[in-house]
């Protein structure tokens, strides 16, 4: 079963941060190829043909997104979304820390294809090591002439600015990211206009995830056909699954899209802890509705997961076994979202805080049936009603556990604990 990883190849074995090592593995060849043999349109077309779907959560095809940029004389910007803060998701961090040149090369190719005037990497504040690694890698790339003016003697010039966040989940949302990058509060903006039309400083802007961009050099180097040969028809390529929770070997696993949940958990993540049974899995981060043991054989690609009632999202796979209290899980998320809402929209600001208060009471055995009814009803007023999707996110997982694990909620409400133990983590 030796699937050859693509983006993560060499990680853990080679020091890819060193530009020479990266080059020795074929690094910056794609850039060379693009600048020598391809027009920006060629690169764009290749990515479009490859149907590279965004890895940041929404799965939107990058090639199509790039095509939305109007050609009206305004400068264009490319932003790499390295804010990775989705609970249970940690693959961007690995790519940045262990394969930064791949990201830089991906950015350069995307910037070339989109004719961006300047590129930015918005990296979350917690990734201090990642930031330093990128700064170092960028300096090397500059010294080698991969970044800067007239790259490799071509007409193409590009500066990459690394911008550190400072602890705000919402800055991962693309327009929140732009607000933050402009020196403001990371408050999302109303769409339309979409960033492609009016983004950074009101100019056409592409926002792509780290992993998305890391795929670009391979697509350019090996061609769209090669890319399409991996994964499924509608979800081609590999995906780095971040597996965590109640498994033996949590970690990042790069596998073709469409790998089954069972294979991922049992063959790669080492299976459940001894003596445990599987209760539920979240396939794509905090907001993804639960998959149940009966879903173990579904292929993990964008469409199959959706068909099963959840979302692939960031492919941050979180595993809950029979020791986990599902009310407790809902409360973790509720606390998280009520802390991370930017606070602009009424339903999100008030709703997330209210949800957390109700869930806390329920968890402590002070809830009522009325509370459960209120929680169920919040779906109507909190999803599809706000500027960005955080509000929706905050309610989807909750709805799925309210449905599938109603008995656990009832047990809490009726004064009995569900008998499972996981304590709240107090923050000051």
């Amino acid at each position, binding site marked *: 079963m030796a699937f050859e990883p693509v983006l993560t190849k060499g*990680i*853990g074995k080679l020091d890819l941060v060193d530009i020479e090592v990266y080059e020795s593995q074929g690094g910056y060849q794609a850039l060379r190829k693009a600048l020598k043999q391809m027009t920006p349109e060629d690169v764009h077309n290749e990515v479009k043909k490859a149907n590279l779907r965004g890895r940041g959560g929404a799965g939107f095809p990058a090639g199509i997104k790039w095509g939305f940029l109007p050609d009206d004389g305004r*400068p264009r910007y490319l932003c790499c979304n390295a804010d990775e*803060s989705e*609970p*249970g*998701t*940690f693959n961007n*961090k*690995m790519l940045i820390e*262990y394969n930064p040149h791949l990201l830089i090369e991906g950015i350069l190719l995307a910037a070339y294809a989109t004719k961006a005037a300047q590129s930015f990497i918005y990296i*979350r*504040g*917690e*990734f*201090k*090591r990642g930031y330093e690694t990128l700064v170092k890698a960028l300096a090397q790339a500059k010294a080698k002439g991969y970044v800067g003016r007239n790259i490799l003697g071509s007409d193409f010039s590009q*500066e990459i*600015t690394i*911008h*550190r*966040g*400072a*602890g*705000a*989940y919402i800055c991962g949302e693309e327009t929140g990211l732009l607000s*933050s*990058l*402009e*020196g*403001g*509060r*990371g408050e999302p903006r109303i769409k339309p206009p979409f960033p492609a039309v009016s983004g950074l*400083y009101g100019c056409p802007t592409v926002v792509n995830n780290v992993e998305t961009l890391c795929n670009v050099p391979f697509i350019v180097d090996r061609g769209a056909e090669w890319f399409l040969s991996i994964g499924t028809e509608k979800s081609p390529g590999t995906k780095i699954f*971040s*597996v*965590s*929770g109640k498994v033996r*070997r*949590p*970690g*990042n696993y790069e596998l073709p899209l469409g790998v089954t949940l069972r294979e991922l958990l049992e063959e790669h993540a080492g299976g459940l802890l001894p003596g445990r049974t599987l209760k539920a899995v979240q396939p794509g981060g*905090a907001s993804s509705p639960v998959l149940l043991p009966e879903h173990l054989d579904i292929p993990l690609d964008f469409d199959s997961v959706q068909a099963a009632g959840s979302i692939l999202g960031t492919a941050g796979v*979180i595993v*809950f076994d029979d020791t986990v209290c599902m009310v*407790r899980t809902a409360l*973790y*998320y509720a*606390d*998280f979202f009520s*802390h*991370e809402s*930017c606070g602009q929209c009424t339903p999100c600001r008030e709703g997330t805080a209210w949800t957390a208060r109700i869930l806390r009471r329920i968890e402590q055995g002070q809830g009522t049936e009325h509370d459960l009814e209120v929680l169920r009803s919040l779906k109507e007023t909190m999803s599809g009603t706000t500027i960005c999707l955080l509000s929706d996110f905050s309610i989807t997982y909750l709805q799925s556990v309210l449905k599938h694990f109603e008995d656990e909620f009832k047990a809490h409400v009726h004064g009995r604990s569900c008998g499972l133990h*996981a*304590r*709240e*983590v*107090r*923050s*000051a």
Partner: protein
Amino acid sequence: MSAPAWVEKHKEKIEEIIARYPKKRSALMPLLHLAQEERGWIADEDIEAVAAILGETKSVVESVCSFYSLFYRRPMGKYVITVCGNITCGLSGAQELVDHLERRLGIKVGETTPDGLITLLVTGECIAACDGAPALQVNLEYCGNVTPERADEIIELIKKGEDPAAISDRFGIPPVKAV
């Protein structure tokens, strides 16, 4: 109030930061980071200095600053230990870890040891170290699988004045798990 020392000390760096962006205002967060690197936290005079550099009001800078959890507006210990309080770490014993640290350090979450060495925090944000749950950061350097015993070792190193990066090198989370 006179300008804090970092403004003079990093004169060129400040220019360089501003020059990175098409618009000056984008330098706001980088300048706050710069100020915090110098002092360990952001004081009123830092806010004022950033406002002056960018031609914004203090209110605006404070408004932006307060949006971000990692900008500290009160004095912090030399080492800031931040335990991840999100789901995976929570399900893997983060609270037990916090309890242990509180006992061991003799302070509550949010407090700083009397000698000013260590501040203990819990973050609600997932720090993207779920493969090393429960995880924490020492001055934003990662440590994973932090059992109470490992926590003690980390504190010992801190007391010896060890560099957070070096601590992370020992207690960090390997990118690839041995099978």
